[in-house]
């Protein structure tokens, strides 16, 4: 059973949840989106919430997307007003906890877009965890707001999510 993934995807207005079986990797993805940027931009950022419903800590070690050459796990850090980016090798999600990627903080850095992306486009991504578990995610391109930096990253669709698992 290890490595086996049962993915329940619920597509509700650009919202994708991926739930894996409990004995492999019990990870749920909430509200994935990609920050819209000018069409000539090669580097974009993706945000989402990674929820670990399992008993064991999970380590995200790789992210890939067919729409980009490379994807990195990055963190924007503010020292005073100075914005600085750090590259993370892995991202730990403790048991029964979630880690939120949001503007001004953690994000997936999508590098070298294969074609320009516009608002409303879908970006498929695969998250690979250290135990071999993989989670498929589809993020939607949309214009971000500074409010996205706040703590409420759930949108109206979060209710639908709860019915699906």
């Amino acid at each position, binding site marked *: 059973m290890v490595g086996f993934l049962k993915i329940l995807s619920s597509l509700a207005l650009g919202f994708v949840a991926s739930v894996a079986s409990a004995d492999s990797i019990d990870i749920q993805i909430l509200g994935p989106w990609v920050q819209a940027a000018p069409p000539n*931009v090669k580097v974009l950022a993706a945000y989402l919430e990674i929820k670990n419903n399992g008993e064991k800590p999970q380590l995200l070690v790789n992210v890939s997307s067919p729409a980009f050459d490379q994807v990195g796990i990055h963190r924007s850090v503010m020292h005073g007003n100075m*914005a*600085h980016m750090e590259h993370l090798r892995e991202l730990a999600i403790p048991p029964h906890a979630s880690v939120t990627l949001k503007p*001004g903080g953690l994000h997936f850095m999508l590098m070298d877009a294969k074609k320009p992306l516009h608002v409303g486009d879908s970006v498929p991504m695969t998250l690979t965890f250290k135990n071999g578990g993989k989670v498929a995610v589809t993020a939607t391109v949309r214009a971000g707001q*500074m409010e*996205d930096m706040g703590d409420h990253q759930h949108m109206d669709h979060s209710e639908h999510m709860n019915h699906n698992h």
Partner: protein
Amino acid sequence: MKRQSLLLTKRSLAVLLFIALSVTAFIGWKLSNDPVIKAPAEIEDYLFWQAKELTDFKLTGADNKTLGLNELKGKWSFIFFGYTHCPDVCPLTLMVLGQAFKILEKNPAVFPEIQGIFVSVDPKRDTPESLKEYVSYFNDRFIGVTGSTADLDDFSRQMSAMYTVHPKEAGQSDDTYLVTHNSTVFLVDPQGRLHGRFPPPQTPKEVAEVFMKIRMFYNERSNKQWWVF
């Protein structure tokens, strides 16, 4: 006779001195008591203690257009330093600034008074032409500029907006290095002085409302000083 004239001179000197002191005291009192002279509390945090005079600088925009101190004079300039390979903070800040401009541009008096300038501190990857396309996505009047390292260093130092271009990480391609930059939106007044700043995280409403108060305060103060002196 000699003694008397000396006395007269002394007395007239004393009178003159008294008048001079009174006038000085009055102006001082007028300045310190005038509520218009002191910045309102709600914009105080956005203003520099004293507007800072800038010296001429040289940056380049699309179509080889030069941006220097002259291009800042006569307008309020909102200036942001960043780079286009910055996917997180830069597009978000420019989007906020674009939305703030949308609010401000509804006011026909304000529309011609404001300009938005994006300074790329990454001239290796950002050309003036690519910057034009980049900034126009956020507001079609925004100006994108960059320059030589020396020119960028000079201007960012004047604006207290330091930046660092980091060497690429091991195993990364030549094009994927990172840049640390200041994510404040700086405000230069129509006299070409660094006047205020909007520290992160900004919101469109905050930038628009605070700017209108800064502008009103600036205009009132300009009129007042004219009247006092």
